[in-house]
């Protein structure tokens, strides 16, 4: 019963689980690179918690909406960097 109530609450409250994304990127060597990628990714509607790591070369973010890979790839390339792969 509790599960049903929780499920109904989530449906009617519009609650949506955010999906996490991870992208491996080449060419990042400094904090200015990080800024460029963050600025361009923020142009994509709905992206949250954007984290860019110089150590791992991974760009992570989450979104409640489905984010087209092409839009992410284009944003990162507009910043001047290369997408290696989307890590599932």
């Amino acid at each position, binding site marked *: 019963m509790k599960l049903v109530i929780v499920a109904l609450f989530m449906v009617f409250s519009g609650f949506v689980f955010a999906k996490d994304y991870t992208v491996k990127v080449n060419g990042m*060597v400094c*904090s200015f690179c*990080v800024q460029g990628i963050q600025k361009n990714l923020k142009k994509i509607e709905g992206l949250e918690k954007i984290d860019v790591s110089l150590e791992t070369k991974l760009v992570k973010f989450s979104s409640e909406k489905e984010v087209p890979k092409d839009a992410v790839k284009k944003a990162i390339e*507009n910043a001047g960097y290369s997408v290696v792969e989307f890590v599932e």
Partner: protein
Amino acid sequence: MILFLLSLNVLAHPVIFQDGKEIMTNYQPFLQEYNFMYSVNSKNSLGFKQMNTKDEKMSLLTYNHLFKRFNGNDSQGNIYLLTGMGSNEDSQFSYNLGLEADWESRRIYVSGKTVNMSHNNLLRLRTGFAPYKASFEDLNMWLMVEYTSFGKNNEVTPFVRLYYDFLLIEVGYGLNKNFMLNTMFHF
């Protein structure tokens, strides 16, 4: 004597990320430069440059183009075209036309630039290393040296580059006793 012209472009990339804006200043006793640049996209930038030397003051509109970028796993290389066009305080035509190449990792930096200008040619070479790998949140420090050839003048300037968040500062003192202070920020 005009000396050390056009050092601003070695402070940072002449083209940055799409919609990125960059303000750079360069101070040396014989040269002061003020530069604003807007990257239309990741390949092309437009801007304005004011250059003051002992002999001449130039105001230039600039256009820079990224010919090629090499994105490695932990490195980046670039080849740029540098152009500028305008006039000096006597309303005479002034221009810059040059090439710049750089390669950098998180620990090593190398760059070279040659520029043909209205009355002189410039060659500038830079190299340096970071004593530690800094993360995005850290203060980044580089120990570097710059060689400049401009006309009959040659100078070697050891300097320290520091940057944090969106601000970069370079401080050096040349073997010919010329103090150098460069600043730059992105937004």
